[in-house]
């Protein structure tokens, strides 16, 4: 047969597939007829209608049908053949019939498919997001389930970062249970090549980083353990990401060996990461990787590598064969015991190590419950949405099933089995749901694209990297089929009820209020919608509450901010100090600026710094939090922010390295350590010095608007110098004007100086509100969708049931019933169902929202607004949905209604 000529490759492929599919036939049949079947295939293929590409498709369809009938035929003995052949024949006929029904009722089809597609699409999109961010193992890494994250545990800190010396000790002492231990941290850098300079994020990594993750560069090499983890400052090499390689270097194949300037130093590019590896965190795709040993070159004037107490790195280990989490935990305890013995001062306070499986860490393990909580709420909400959509479509089907009751009755009385009719209806609904599944997948594709393109308003290589993969496809397919069965089952059973035969005789007279199934659907729909809307309502209320919280400082709208780091231009400490002094003077001199200052961390940023303190005269209880938040500020900062002084003084320009170490604390700090007395003149030991408290200021919000009052310390930046500061200016007008002037001033001092996060405090605060805003708007959209679906559904059921009762109502009117009475009759019936649904929905919402309490800023789970407004809106919608058809019913022309039967 293979000698058949001439064959195009495509034809050959089709033939190979056909030959392969012949395995479906029983062995005997194949042995007898294989060559004949292939011959027949060739004959068919050479027919005009089956040649070419279009003909190929036609042939595929033709063969598929052939298989469906012939395989069961060949697989059954002569006696039963009629049965199986019959069923397959029936299914084919059902499908054909269903397709015809779909095409014949385009409005019905569109309504059902779009409703269901929305439900399925939202599910697929949400599942994709949750899957990409939380569930999917780290993309591009080898055996990511063998990776663990290691954190230092201190009193009050479960997920503490690691210092370089600590990391090195862990790496060298854990060989029994971890095959590799790597470390990494994010570091902002400025990259220049071809005269273009940009600020971006790098990951500074240990030399064995890529080896630990099992990532092989697509070009060049990885860093070399044993070489690039020695001799600090001696290896100016860099590895760039696939994305950066394409974006910045147009995918130049000769990139290896080229150089770039990073923070003013020359680095040689030695490798390009593979496209599937986005970095050590699922939420970020950093463009540049640099060796840990270059850390001090990147941030001069500050030895990052030497101090054991300077914790800033993430540590990741790969478990050896036959090693489990428990073994790692035990091993780490032994390592800690050794270190405590050798270096008691450094390890005294450390409680242990927290070991987290990489696959269970999500975005960051400290988000733990919040991220799983948030995603389960989202999944529950879209699940509800899908249920509502199913209820709607079931209702559409039910209504149509009733229209077709006469047809079904006739078929039943002609001897068609109930099973046969149910089969027909289920075929239809599954066909529907598969169609809707395809459409829903399209919608999900659009939604995830939009989400992937979304850039959070935070500088950095953040990327949601949401994509649909096989798991999502399988999930969607399962959801579609399930949905098909769910919404197909009720109408199918209803249609084939034994008493349906009676329908032939009486022409389908209805019990008042429609069937039990459709009344059940109305109740279910109202209840589900209520649950969905209350949940979304609570989130929206939380958002409202969060925006209304007073951050503690005055008028964020007239605050301008800009971040500059002269260190990135290679300035040393003296140069940086001089740069800042001049900049502060110039900005202060602007007529629009009332006051200006510098701070190390902006309020309401997602990150924070804390430092362990010792307060003479105060005994910390066991497990009491000893590590407190702080920032470094210049004179003028507290004034610019409008944070009020309670007692003492704020910093002046003479609080510098020459003077005594002084600090300012907040009221909360003073209340905790010196309740009932003045904090002025008291001492706090931290950062290796004794600090005298010279001022107390009011307590404001530091990290998030929802936080509890927190102790806070301010240190003068002229004593603890850092170059990467944020300039904050209080303006007496539009902050945008000042932002423009600040940029001009900085560029005037150094044209290449990178400036970033230039914005008003109000915009900056948007970041702190981002989770609430995102959640709020997504849930708002879902809630609106749910409300629309519910309204449409309730209207549909009501309108239909009234239409069914036209005859009964006509008789009532003919017998002299008042039209108002008829209106009331229909209205009462409809509202009764809506109220039952509301009560059930409220009870469910009451139960469910208890679980959400922890995620809401300041809203009680039993928020009165969410729990009254939402039901009222819903009942209003239901009333309208009942009223319109009821009014039509009351206007029924009695004669016409009676004649129409």
């Amino acid at each position: 047969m293979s000698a058949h000529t001439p064959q195009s490759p495509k034809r050959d492929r089709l033939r190979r597939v056909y030959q392969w599919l012949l395995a479906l036939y029983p062995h005997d049949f194949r042995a007898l007829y294989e060559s004949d079947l292939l011959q027949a295939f060739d004959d068919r293929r050479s027919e005009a209608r089956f040649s070419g590409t279009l003909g190929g498709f036609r042939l595929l369809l033709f063969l598929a049908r052939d298989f469906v009938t012939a395989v069961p035929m060949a697989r059954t003995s002569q006696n039963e053949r009629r049965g199986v052949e019959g069923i397959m024949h029936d299914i084919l006929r059902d499908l054909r019939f269903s397709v015809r029904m779909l095409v014949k009722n385009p409005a019905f089809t569109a309504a059902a498919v779009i409703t269901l597609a929305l439900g399925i699409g939202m599910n697929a999109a949400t599942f994709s997001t949750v899957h990409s961010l939380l569930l999917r193992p780290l993309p591009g890494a080898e055996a990511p389930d063998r990776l663990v994250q290691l954190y230092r545990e201190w009193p009050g800190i479960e997920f503490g970062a690691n210092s370089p010396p600590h990391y090195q000790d862990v790496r060298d002492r854990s060989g029994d249970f971890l095959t590799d231990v790597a470390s990494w941290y994010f570091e902002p850098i400025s990259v220049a090549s071809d005269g273009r300079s940009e600020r971006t994020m790098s990951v500074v990594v240990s030399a064995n980083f890529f080896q630990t993750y099992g990532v092989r560069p697509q070009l060049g090499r990885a860093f070399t353990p044993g070489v690039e983890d020695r001799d600090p400052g001696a290896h100016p090499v860099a590895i760039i990401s696939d994305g950066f390689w394409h974006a910045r270097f147009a995918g130049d194949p000769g990139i290896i060996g080229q150089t770039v300037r990073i923070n003013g130093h020359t680095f040689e590019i030695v490798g390009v990461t593979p496209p599937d590896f986005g970095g050590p965190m699922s939420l970020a795709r950093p463009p540049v990787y640099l060796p840990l040993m270059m850390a001090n070159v990147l941030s001069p004037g500050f030895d990052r590598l030497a101090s054991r107490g300077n914790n800033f790195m993430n540590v990741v280990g790969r478990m050896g064969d036959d090693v489990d989490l428990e073994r790692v935990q035990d091993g780490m305890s032994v390592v800690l015991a050794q270190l405590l013995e050798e270096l008691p001062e450094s390890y005294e306070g450390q409680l242990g190590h927290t070991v987290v499986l990489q696959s269970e860490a999500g975005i960051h393990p400290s988000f733990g419950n919040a991220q799983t909580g948030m995603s389960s709420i989202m999944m529950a909400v879209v699940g509800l949405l899908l249920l509502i959509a199913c209820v709607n479509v079931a209702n559409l089907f039910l209504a149509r099933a009733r229209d077709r009751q006469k047809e079904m009755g006739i078929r039943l009385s002609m001897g068609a089995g109930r099973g046969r009719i149910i089969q027909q209806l289920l075929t239809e609904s599954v066909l529907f749901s598969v169609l809707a599944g395809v459409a829903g997948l399209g919608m999900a594709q659009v939604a995830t694209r939009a989400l992937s393109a979304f850039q959070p308003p935070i500088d950095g290589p953040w990327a949601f990297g949401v994509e649909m993969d096989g798991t999502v496809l399988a999930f969607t397919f399962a959801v579609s089929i399930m949905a098909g069965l769910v919404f197909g089952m009720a109408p199918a059973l209803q249609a084939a009820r034994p008493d349906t035969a009676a329908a032939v005789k009486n022409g389908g007279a209805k019990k008042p209020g429609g069937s039990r199934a459709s009344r059940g659907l109305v109740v279910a729909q109202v209840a589900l919608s209520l649950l969905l809307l209350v949940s979304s309502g609570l989130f929206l209320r939380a958002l409202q509450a969060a925006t209304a919280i007073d951050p503690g400082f005055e008028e964020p709208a007239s605050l301008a901010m800009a971040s500059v780091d002269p260190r990135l231009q290679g300035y040393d400490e003296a140069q940086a100090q001089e740069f800042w002094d001049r900049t502060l003077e110039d900005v202060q001199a602007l007529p629009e600026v009332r006051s200006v200052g510098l701070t190390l961390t902006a309020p309401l940023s997602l990150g924070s710094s804390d430092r362990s303190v010792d307060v003479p005269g105060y005994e910390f209880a066991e497990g009491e939090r000893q590590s407190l938040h702080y920032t470094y500020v210049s004179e003028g900062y507290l004034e610019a922010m409008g944070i009020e002084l309670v007692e003492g003084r704020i910093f002046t320009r003479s609080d510098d390295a020459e003077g005594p170490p002084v600090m300012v604390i907040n009221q909360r700090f003073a209340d905790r350590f010196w309740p009932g007395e003045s904090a002025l003149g008291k001492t706090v030991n931290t950062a290796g010095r004794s600090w005298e408290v010279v001022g107390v200021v009011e307590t404001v919000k530091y990290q998030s608007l929802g936080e509890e009052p927190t102790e806070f310390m301010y240190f003068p930046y002229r004593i603890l110098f850092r170059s990467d500061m944020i300039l904050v200016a209080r303006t007496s007008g539009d902050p945008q004007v000042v932002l423009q002037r600040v940029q001009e001033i900085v560029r005037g001092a150094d044209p290449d100086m990178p400036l970033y996060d230039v914005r008003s405090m109000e915009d900056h605060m948007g970041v702190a509100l981002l989770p609430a805003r995102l959640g709020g708007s997504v849930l708002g959209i879902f809630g609106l969708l749910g409300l629309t679906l519910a309204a449409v559904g309730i209207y549909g059921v009501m309108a239909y049931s009234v239409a069914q009762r036209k005859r009964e109502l006509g008789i009532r009117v003919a017998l002299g019933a008042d039209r108002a009475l008829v209106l009331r009759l229909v209205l009462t019936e409809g509202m009764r169902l809506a109220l039952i649904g509301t009560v059930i929905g409220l009870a469910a919402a009451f139960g469910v929202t208890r679980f959400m309490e922890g995620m809401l800023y300041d809203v009680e789970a039993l928020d009165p607004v969410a729990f009254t407004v939402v039901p009222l809106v819903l009942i209003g919608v239901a009333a309208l949905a009942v009223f319109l058809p009821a009014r039509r019913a009351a206007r029924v022309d009695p004669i016409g209604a009676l004649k129409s039967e």
Partner: protein
Amino acid sequence: MYARNGLPMTLEHDLDDVLPLSPTAFHVLVAMANGPRHGYAIAQEVESLTDGRIVMGPGTLYGSLQRMVASSLIEEAENPGEEGLHAGRRRYYQMTPLGSAALRAESERLLRAVNVAQERLGT
């Protein structure tokens, strides 16, 4: 040992087993009424006889042929050595006496039915 139609008794008995013929079997028999045919020729002939209402894919074709061989309506024939593409390798089929009798009986039954129908419809 001959009954009505002049067929052997055994054949008469077998006829009861195979009648009425399925539409497919009927047309397959018609297709080979003029002598042996190979599989694809049968499928083509059936398709043209029925104006394209019965189109047999490879599986359906050979599944049906297998059935008809098993119920002795048709049997494999010698290759007549015709000219044509792969003609030498094709499997040919021909009617058995039972097949021929069944075709005759079935067409008579259909003809009677058609006559009655047309009479009553007044055509």
